[in-house]
């Protein structure tokens, strides 16, 4: 399996901006650790680990888009927010990013603050806000949950990608002048396509989990399980 770097690598954003975002990321992570501790019970601890492992695994699958030049992978923020909640979810994504930076060199260590801000904080926060809003509006059916998962995943990917554009505008290695709009367009366009893939995988995964083990879906805990028709159990002999 070929693994390509898709996180910001060293040297793309200048030092001061990276330092500012490192401070932002550190503060947000501290808050998440504090809030996450209250949530991490016997059900959530293995789930958090599995969500992180799942994100780690799917991030290795690259979506080739049209040509080999442009590719991207899943981010997983929406999946994490749905299954383990925003606080632990953001921590899961941050752990994945940290291990990838330390071990693979995917995303520079000095740029970790930027990557955590985009993918773990902005991505998960955008997804969770959408999830809360959509679950309130949409009918409490499997279709409603699937739409929620799809839309929140799609939007969170695009929003997280645009976080990079803002950071590049603040401290990019090269002043692109008016070309920054072109960069924003390219990034938003490619990530819209990635977002569709991410949305499908997120919806499929969450729907299966919600059907068989609704107690595991964090986003459904507050308002009770959705109405479901009985489905054959997944798994069987192993």
């Amino acid at each position, binding site marked *: 399996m070929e693994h390509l770097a898709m996180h910001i690598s060293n040297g*793309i954003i200048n030092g001061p901006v990276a330092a500012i975002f490192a401070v932002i990321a550190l503060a947000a992570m501290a808050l998440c650790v504090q809030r996450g501790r209250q949530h991490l019970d016997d059900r959530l601890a*293995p789930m958090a680990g599995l969500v992180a492992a799942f994100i780690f695994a799917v991030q290795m699958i690259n979506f080739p888009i049209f040509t080999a030049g442009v590719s991207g992978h899943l981010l997983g923020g929406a999946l994490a927010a749905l299954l383990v909640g925003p606080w632990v979810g953001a921590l899961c994504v941050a752990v994945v990013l940290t291990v990838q930076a330390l071990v693979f060199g995917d995303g520079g*260590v000095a740029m970790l603050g930027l990557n955590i801000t985009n993918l773990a904080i902005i991505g998960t926060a955008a997804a969770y806000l959408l999830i809360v809003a959509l679950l309130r509006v949409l009918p409490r059916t499997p279709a409603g949950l699937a739409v929620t998962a799809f839309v929140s995943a799609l939007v969170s990917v695009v929003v997280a990608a645009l976080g990079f554009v803002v950071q590049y505008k603040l401290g990019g290695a090269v002043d692109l002048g008016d070309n920054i709009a072109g960069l924003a367009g390219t990034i938003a366009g490619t990530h819209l396509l990635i977002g569709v893939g991410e949305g499908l995988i997120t919806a499929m995964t969450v729907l299966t989990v919600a059907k068989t083990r609704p107690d595991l879906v964090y986003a459904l805990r507050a308002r009770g399980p959705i109405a479901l028709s009985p489905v054959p159990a997944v798994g069987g002999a192993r």
Partner: protein
Amino acid sequence: MGAGHSQLLYHCSDSPVHRLPPEVKIAAMVAFTLAVVATPREALWAFGGYAVLVVAVAAVARVRPGWLLRRSLIELPFVLFAFALPFLGVGERTELLGLSVSVDGLYGAWNILAKGTLGVLASLLLAATTTTRDLIIGLDRLRCPQLLTQIATFMLRYLEVLVGEARRMRVARLSRGDDPRFGWQLRGFATGVGALFLRAYERGERVYLAMLSRGYTGRMPQVWQGAEAATPGQWLVASTVPAVAAGVAATALVLT
């Protein structure tokens, strides 16, 4: 290390670098990367100095150059981005091979290439000389919050579970007449991803409950942690590389 624990990039060998405690190596790698990133991009010679440091560490750690180079291909998307910069940048322009390119863009491309590559090589050297288990012990000793090390521990543990379940499900599909021809078996993957997640969770839950019933409290027992924490001597040895790098960076900052 028992069976079934695949190491992502670990290079099993014995060298002075392998023997250093993990927390020392992590700290040295991060400090080295920060020094590289802080170097002004006009100081071309400084990056040569960093490259010499990386080669020296790789030689001491007995990591083959071919492996390092192949693994650093991971950086490719950003290299492509770097090559676009000279044409997109604004401001003063110059002639290069008959093409009009932006000077600022040229420096920016160099900046990304040099700093990105050095960062990737430093990470790879850490990964090649440290097992993932040791990496987490190192993070734990560097006072990383326990919640994070716990998630990281389970993540690495459940990667195995996930890969194992995926393999079993693939065999099950094949034995029921599925004939995956398409590259990465898009269709089978898409329909099975939810089931894969759930199966892996249920297996992982049993692993977790078994750990709890054997006294797991959120932190791995002392035995698992193996060797003692780093001595001042080991900190001193490992700090030579980032210290030299910091010296180079400081000189470069003064000179430019």
